[in-house]
């Protein structure tokens, strides 16, 4: 009996086998067709409801926002800027690039250019010893002070953004550098040469005084204290340079603090309320809500600080270029500034690239 039954089963299987395959094939074909249809639907960007009927998309199809309606109007708004940009930005930029490849002799109405190819650039890197040291100094200074400026201004902004008594007073004080720092006054305050030594001493004595005010080392020499810690000499040197630089650092923080506060204000309060309900600590709140929400502001601050630090009045490269301009050596000074600008551009590019890869993506 059993064998008979088996046979029957086998028979039926054999009979059904091709048909099963066919069914499978048919199913596959159906699936593919469905997928195709879905893809088409996606391409058309039309929404379907459960029954497969088209939902009229109010936003896209029928009622248009101003953004897309008569979008060419935007062109008229931007047109004056485009004219200005070409006249006062693009043309001078290209001209200065041309100057960097030539000996420039000012003539009535135009510049006489004697093309020398890459000579200026070769000169800068091979013969002009000051330039490479100045350049490395400027870039090195930037890399040590940029993180400090960003971190300090973020901390200050967080403090000034919280609620406490005297908030307006402190904010008022903290914006003073915004007014004074970006200018000639700063040049006088930090001028290391000549008869204005008194105020220079002032900027170094202010740091000492600040320490005695905070109480970390009352009147004690700070570098001695650092040396007694027996850290590696590199770290000690870096720390002490940081400390003597505190005056400059704090004064560069003005505008970053303003930008950070503006960014912090845009974080919706509901996020913090939700995190309180979930029982998050302040530390977690900072890492999971505050920092991701101001990711873009942080990038803006980094780029702003970068430009600010690299084009400061005290920057040795720019001083050197200005001295050359005064000697009417326009060609070399243009080449110098272009090398400098290329380096700034490269740094900005790398910073944006790394930042968006590492931080912005993760925070989204």
């Amino acid at each position, binding site marked *: 009996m059993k064998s008979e039954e088996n046979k029957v089963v086998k028979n039926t299987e054999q009979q059904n086998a091709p048909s099963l395959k066919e069914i499978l094939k048919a199913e596959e074909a159906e699936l593919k067709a469905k997928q195709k249809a879905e893809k088409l639907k996606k391409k058309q960007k039309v929404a379907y409801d459960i029954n497969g009927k088209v939902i009229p998309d109010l936003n896209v199809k029928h009622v248009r926002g101003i953004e897309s309606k008569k979008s060419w109007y935007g062109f008229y*708004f931007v047109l004056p800027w485009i004219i200005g940009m070409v006249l006062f930005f693009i043309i001078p930029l290209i001209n200065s690039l041309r100057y960097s490849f030539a000996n420039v002799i000012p003539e009535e109405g135009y510049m006489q250019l004697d093309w020398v190819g890459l000579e200026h650039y070769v000169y800068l890197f091979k013969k002009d010893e000051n330039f490479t040291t100045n350049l490395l100094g400027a870039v090195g200074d930037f890399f040590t002070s940029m993180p400090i400026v960003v971190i300090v201004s973020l901390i200050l902004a967080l403090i000034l953004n919280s609620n406490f008594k005297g908030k307006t007073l402190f904010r008022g004080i903290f914006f003073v550098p915004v007014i004074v720092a970006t200018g000639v006054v700063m040049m006088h305050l930090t001028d290391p040469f000549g008869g204005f030594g008194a105020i220079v001493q002032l900027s170094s004595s202010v740091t000492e005084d600040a320490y005695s005010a905070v109480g970390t080392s009352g009147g004690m020499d700070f570098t001695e204290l650092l040396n007694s810690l027996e850290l590696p000499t590199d770290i000690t040197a870096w720390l002490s340079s940081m400390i003597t630089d505190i005056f400059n650092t704090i004064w560069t923080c003005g505008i970053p603090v303003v930008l950070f*506060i503006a960014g912090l204000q845009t974080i919706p309060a509901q996020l913090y309320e939700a995190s309180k309900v979930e029982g998050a600590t302040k530390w977690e709140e900072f890492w999971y809500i505050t920092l991701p929400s101001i990711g873009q502001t942080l990038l803006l601050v980094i780029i702003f600080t970068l430009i600010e630090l690299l084009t400061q009045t005290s920057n040795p490269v720019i001083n050197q270029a*200005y001295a050359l301009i005064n000697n009417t050596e326009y060609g070399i000074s243009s080449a110098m500034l272009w090398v400098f600008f290329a380096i*700034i551009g490269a740094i900005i590019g790398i910073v944006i690239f790394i930042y968006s890869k590492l931080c912005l993506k993760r925070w989204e």
Partner: protein
Amino acid sequence: MSTKEIQLKKTVPALNKHKVKEKATGLVVSIFRYVLLIAISYIILYPLFALISFSIQSKADILDSSVTWIPRAPTFETYKVAWEYLDYGNSFLNTILIGMVSAALEIFSCAVAAYGFARFKFKGRGLLFGLVLLTAIVPVQILVIPQFLNYRYFNLGYLIDLINLIPGVNIPFLDLSDSPFTFWLPSLFGVGLRSGLFIFIYRQFFMGLPKELEEASWIDGCNPLMTFVRVVIPSSGVVFLTVSIFAIIWHCNEYYQSVIYFSETFPLSVMLAGVRDSLWHTGVLDMYLAPYVSAACLMFIAPVLILYLFLQKKFIQSIDRVGIVG
């Protein structure tokens, strides 16, 4: 006793303990906060106070090592000398004429461009906005020399060159150097001092404005320009205030371009930069220079500082509400 009351008795002390702990940490945090803020305020205000103290020291006070803050024989002679060397009246007027006018122009031209970038999706918008950022990044020093020539022999964007191609016609180039046009023209077109940053700030703000108001004014028949003037500008006073303050301050402090463009009519910043050297050349000894320079610095800061004191509250509030997202 009901069970509820027992539960309450149990939970109340626990809550109190928690509260006490919270209060203690709160106290520590606030003490730390004030110490930090006061220390940093000290660093910020120190130079200002020192400038004031220096500026009223007489020669005797400088030699007297016991004088640190308050001079024994205060003198206001320094201000008089600094006024003369700065040529304060004239150079202040120059700063107003050059800086303030172009700040005013810039405030509006940047807003117009930013509105175009924020509200309309025209072709090439991304590329053009990239160029806005480029104008913000390129250091101004790189452009200064070609810019100067551009103004010295101004050809209306090669228009005069084109006209001169006609045989027999020879129009001379305009000499705009040493005139306020050097700052007015770029500001008028929205490519002035730090315009890139301003356009950026404006754009962020305009993008955050609700569209409905503008749509309503469109439906009522306003064209986009009228909508901008009548609807957008009145509702964005905050961002205008922020940008105005920055524009005014930066134009006052502008030095790098002015020193190249101007040869006779100097703004205050250029005069201040040269004040130490000109004093030194008239034979003032190095050690006596500081009071005069301090006085000059204070006279330079004063107008902006007074303006800031008046606008301070509004400015701080406006920063809260501008919201630069980036």
